[in-house]
């Protein structure tokens, strides 16, 4: 009995002492919140692949502060409570100085209060513009936010395609609703009219009412903010079946590998804004080549943002020469002209790293780079 008590005390003491006795070669842990199960599990794998690839590259070139990086992943189950739980589990580990995730705005909103309490930097991919204006200094965005995607969609449709009568179709989640608001605003500024604004809930089994509404609206062009690929696929197919052939400029989901496969010919000829396209820059090309040799599949936006997030984070910790949250924060915000897979990172004081988007076209199933639009304001 006494021996067991002694052993317990010893075990407890050693677990408390471990951080103090860690040597330089001990891995530096970075927490990651990603959807490994649930409707977003598909994107979760891409996100993990991107982050792991960056970790491998970083460790090959000497790691961070002389220590190798180690990724600790917690499943968010593609739900908000899941994300909060996953983050709190990671935040419980005091040796983790920074975190990556999530790409879903609604989840970042859910985690934000805990992130503020934890007081450590979190790299996010959610594109709701509000996220970096919450007064939360610990959120750093590695994708251009939706105010840019909406401006690029509107600008391209109105000024390049010369189409003025718009229909907007959007998911009713945070991503879709904010996208819709920003697009409506951007179109107004350009003098275009929105003849239909149609929301739908995620995982709808049928889009006939939506497709009919678009058909009846008399719109010349359609802007969409859809969250999940199966929804996008069902909608695209039913739209074409009902004879709707108007121009389509969509959010990044329109050109993910899965959306292309599910929707097939129904998406031919559509345009989309994407933050990642392999032909948009040499850094993007290099990342795509590396991803393909490692995973034997094509990378998409889900993998590029985690790759950039890990790379910029590691760079910031090395520059700061410290794992103190405030030092890392300052180093991330000081990042200028860093060529990542997603684009050139210039962090503003809100924590937004990117300020532009690429326009691509679905040319009979092949994604063709059209142009990059960068905003200075």
């Amino acid at each position, binding site marked *: 009995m006494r021996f067991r008590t002694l052993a317990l005390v010893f075990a407890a003491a050693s677990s408390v002492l471990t951080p103090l006795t860690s040597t330089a070669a001990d891995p530096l842990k970075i927490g990651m919140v990603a959807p490994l199960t649930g*409707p977003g599990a598909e994107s*979760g*794998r891409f996100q993990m692949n991107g982050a792991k690839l960056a970790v491998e590259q970083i460790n090959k070139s000497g790691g961070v502060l002389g220590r190798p990086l180690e990724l600790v992943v917690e499943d968010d189950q593609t739900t908000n409570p899941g994300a909060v739980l996953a983050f709190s589990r990671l935040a419980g580990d005091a040796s983790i100085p920074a975190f990556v995730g999530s790409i879903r705005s609604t989840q970042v909103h859910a985690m934000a209060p805990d992130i503020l309490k934890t007081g450590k930097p979190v790299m996010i991919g959610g594109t709701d513009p509000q996220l970096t204006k919450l007064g939360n200094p610990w959120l750093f965005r590695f994708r251009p936010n939706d105010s840019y995607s909406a401006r690029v969609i509107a600008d391209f449709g109105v000024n390049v395609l010369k189409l003025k009568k718009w229909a907007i179709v959007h998911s009713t989640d945070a991503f879709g609703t904010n996208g819709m608001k920003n697009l409506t605003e951007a179109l107004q500024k350009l003098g275009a009219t929105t003849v239909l604004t149609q929301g*739908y*809930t995620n995982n*709808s089994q049928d889009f*006939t009412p939506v497709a*009919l509404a678009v058909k009846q609206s008399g719109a010349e062009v359609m802007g969409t903010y859809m969250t999940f690929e199966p929804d996008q696929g069902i909608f695209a*197919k039913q739209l074409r079946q009902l004879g709707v052939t108007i121009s389509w400029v969509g959010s990044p989901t329109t050109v993910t590998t*899965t959306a292309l496969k599910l929707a097939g010919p129904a998406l031919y000829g559509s345009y989309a804004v994407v933050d990642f396209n392999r032909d948009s820059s040499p850094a993007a090309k290099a990342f795509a080549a590396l991803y393909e040799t490692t995973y034997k599949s094509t990378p998409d936006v889900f993998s590029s943002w985690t790759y950039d997030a890990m790379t910029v984070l590691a760079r910031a910790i090395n520059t700061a020469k410290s794992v103190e949250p405030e030092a890392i924060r300052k180093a991330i915000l000081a990042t200028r002209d860093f060529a990542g897979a997603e684009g050139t990172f210039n962090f503003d004081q809100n924590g937004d790293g990117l300020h532009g988007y690429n326009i691509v076209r679905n040319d009979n199933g092949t994604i063709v780079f059209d142009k990059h639009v960068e905003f200075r304001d």
Partner: protein
Amino acid sequence: MGIALQLLFTGLGVGSIYALVALGFVLIYRATNVVNFAQGDFAMLGAFSMVVLCIDLGWPYWLGIVLTIITMALFGALFNLGVYYPLRHRTFLPVIISTIGASILLENGVLAAYGPRPQSLPGVFASQGFSIGPVFFDSQYLTILAVTVFGVALQYLFFERTLLGKKLQAVSQDKEMASLLGIPVAFMIALTFVYSATLGGLAGILVAPILFVSVQMGASIALKAFAASIIGGFGDVTGAIVGGLALGVIETFGAAYISVPYKDGFAFLVLFVFLLIRPQGIFGERVAEKA
């Protein structure tokens, strides 16, 4: 007019998917007095089996269907042995929890084995469908409607005109009495699971070309199918069909004429009204507590 007809066709198509899955719910409920929460996952398994056989292995479509149905029948027997049989003498609660557990296991099992990427499966017919006037008839929805009608007719004949069907009915009405009459109750229940799993698998094969094949495809259909079977009258075969079709039509029209985002809301509003005013459903009979 054209729009209303289009909505009616789509509503019936969607409704027949709910009806097919609701049928599986009802059959198992009748045999065991338990709601099988893994019913939607039977559809998911059927769909994945088709993807493996016809897409990954490249076997002919008809062979895929035959093998999938055989696989699902075997799976139904296995499901009965693993999920229901060990708990058959317990109250309904442990069995329900057991089916919920099975559902989680199946979804995550397929996720682990096949990965999270949604798959597409071509329809039975090469053509997507045809237009008559302003109405587009999706060939897959037509197939589903036809199979549902055919399946219901076959099921009616089986339950009302064959000895085996009557034995199954006897078991669902009173297990003790059936057992006293020499009907092998456990075997009959196993048979019900086999049939339900096959039906679920068939639903999966049929909806896969429309909804795509993903791990959570079954769960979203099952929820609506469950509502449909309550509206129709839980435990009633005709009720499941009528409830399913009604739900499909109501939510499609509600989405088109009132609000798309509240589409799911209409389905559950109808369910709520029924639970409040007519809890036994359209065809259900008010059941008195057994003495």
